[in-house]
């Protein structure tokens, strides 16, 4: 039995909101680290771009949380490769995608912002407005076999 054929009935739907946090991640944590809004010292302006994306994705997050309370909703930084990569592969395989499609989904999902429903990327490149996001996520959930 392949991974794609494993029974998946008990697994809840997972929606990933991929976007950067307004902070530095790799390489300096033990000796200094830059961050935006949540920093001890620093400048909020440093991470203005990431902040913009965080705020926009925050609106999508609140709408999804309100409209789909049973869905497992996770916000993840694309730099969190150690968690994101295996999760994307597992979810995409569970959906029954072949390896070429899995690689394509992983590539699309690891940009600066993306929305992923059960391993399938439904929005990428920019944070959609709330109505678009709800539409895409609903459609993808309807197609998902979970």
């Amino acid at each position, binding site marked *: 039995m392949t991974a794609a054929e494993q029974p998946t009935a008990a697994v809840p739907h997972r929606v990933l909101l991929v976007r950067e946090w307004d902070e530095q991640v*790799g390489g300096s*944590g*033990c000796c200094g680290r830059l961050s935006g809004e949540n920093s001890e*010292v620093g400048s909020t302006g440093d991470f203005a771009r*990431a902040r913009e994306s965080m705020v926009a994705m925050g609106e999508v997050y609140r709408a999804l949380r309100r409209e789909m309370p049973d869905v497992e909703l996770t*916000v993840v930084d694309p*730099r969190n490769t150690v*968690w994101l990569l295996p999760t994307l592969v597992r979810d995409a395989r569970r959906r029954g995608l072949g390896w070429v499609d899995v690689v394509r989904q992983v*590539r699309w*999902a690891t940009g600066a912002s993306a929305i992923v429903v059960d391993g399938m990327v439904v929005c990428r490149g920019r944070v959609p407005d709330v109505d678009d996001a709800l539409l895409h996520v609903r459609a993808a959930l309807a197609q998902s076999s979970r």
Partner: protein
Amino acid sequence: MPAIVVALTVLALFAFGYKYYSTFLASKVFGLDPAFVTPAHRFEDGVDFVPTNKHVLFGHHFTSVAGAAPIVGPAIAVFWGWGPALAWIVLGTIFAAGVHDFGSLVVSVRHKARNIGSLAGEVVNARARNLFLIIIFFLLTLVNAVFAVVIGNLFVANPGAVIPIFVEIPLAIAIGQYIYRTKSSALALSLFGVAVLYALIWVGQRVPIELTGLAEALGVEQERNLWVVIMFVYTFFASRLPVWMLLQPRDYINSHQLFIALGVILIGITVGLTRIVAPVVNDVPEGSPSIFPFLFITIACGAISGFHSLVSSGTTSKQLDKDTDARYVGYMGSVGEGALALGSVLAVTAGVVATRSEWDALYSDFATASGGAVGNFVNGVAEFANNIGIPLDLAAIFAAVVVVSFAATTMDTGVRLQRYVVQEIAENVGFTPLARNITLASLVAVLIPMAMALIPGGGEAGYTFGILWQLFGTTNQLTAGLTLAVIAVWVTRSGRPSWPVLVPLAFLLFMTSWALIANLINFVEARDWVLAPLDAIIFVLAMWLIVESLMALMKARREVAAAGGGTAVAPSGDVVDDGGPDHDRG
């Protein structure tokens, strides 16, 4: 002894500490409560406050706390033998770093996810916030100085690493531009960037860049010092660039390199069946720094790191889904850092050379051990990489590129942070020209650590680096001490046993003060008028911290006694007011 046996033993001890000691801390000391509503739920907005699965949060937290410092300290400290170095890494990780990282996360969560600096002001007293800023100022000064020396030494020893490192800068900028303008996959492009970076190792090997001739022409005594100046000129400009242009794209490259390097070390040790050739306890020459107290400040990060509290209380505490997840995320973050330190010890005791006599030559005295420590790590990792089929000369450049990438990022960040600290201190004391002029503040942030890296030591590279590293260790331990004091006061006020926090706090402050006094005597005797005042100031800060901690602890005990021996805070330990999230910065 086979390195893999030592590695598995240490990892088993870490697992033991996590399973039993962190459980004890969670239930008896921090009083974790599954019913407690964390700030992530209380203020949930999908922007800063986001309840997050603990495995997602750990991935983010660990990538954020891992850096270059747990490599350098242990690589020097094996001078006293691998036994004491590993003993401090294991005991420090389990009983000090675990308490510190886990505790700072819990205290922040119980105070609406506030940062540790403002918590110090609230939980200890208002002066503690200023103390925090001053300690951070000295910590960043020393961080920038030591990492400039690390990079200088590595470029001199591995001239093949120069081209990959300097091409990495425009490469990261190009990748950043492409990702943010075309909204392309950051993962694919950053992996491509790593591949290009490693391909450039081959170019670097064929075109090594040495500055010996230029140094001679300029009358600079050591080539390393020329690299130090170049690095500070570079960071002066790099720290002025928008972060999305260089720092963030390099973040992706660095996060891949972290796991690649960890994989190479682990697989290399396993495949090569490498044996440790260094002594368990080294018979150090007379006149060397003694194991007590210097071991405990030489290994700072890797046994305990004060900066972790800034990560724990910065964003991690805003994402903690359940109170009980703090044990996994916080304690395991410190274990991850301890594992990096373990990798460093194995590289410089098992990987770097094949025989005891060769090792003795590398660690013949403290100056040689200190000056060569990072180079030894690089050569050790190269040997591990060679075990999995990478040619040794290319592997050495690979390891140097990994370390320099991390160290250079640390400098970029450190100079930028230092500029902010300088501006904030200038603002606090009313010195407006410095507070408002970015160029002036950047110059201060660059010139002070550059002087630290170049002036002391009379040209003896190892001496300079070893002593600067120890001073860095003392400031790092003071940052950790301040955080432990905040945790201890909070635990005391909650009426739970505070000795698991007080013991590492007292131990750290005692060892740090002892080392500072010993070094101060040495500096004065040697008429070193650069390092002696610096050491004296850090000692005053240590005394200040001890006094503030004692006063805050006694006050907390009085509050508990006045409450009839119960708790001086709400039963959950949460803050009593029910307002919205606080803003830590003005």
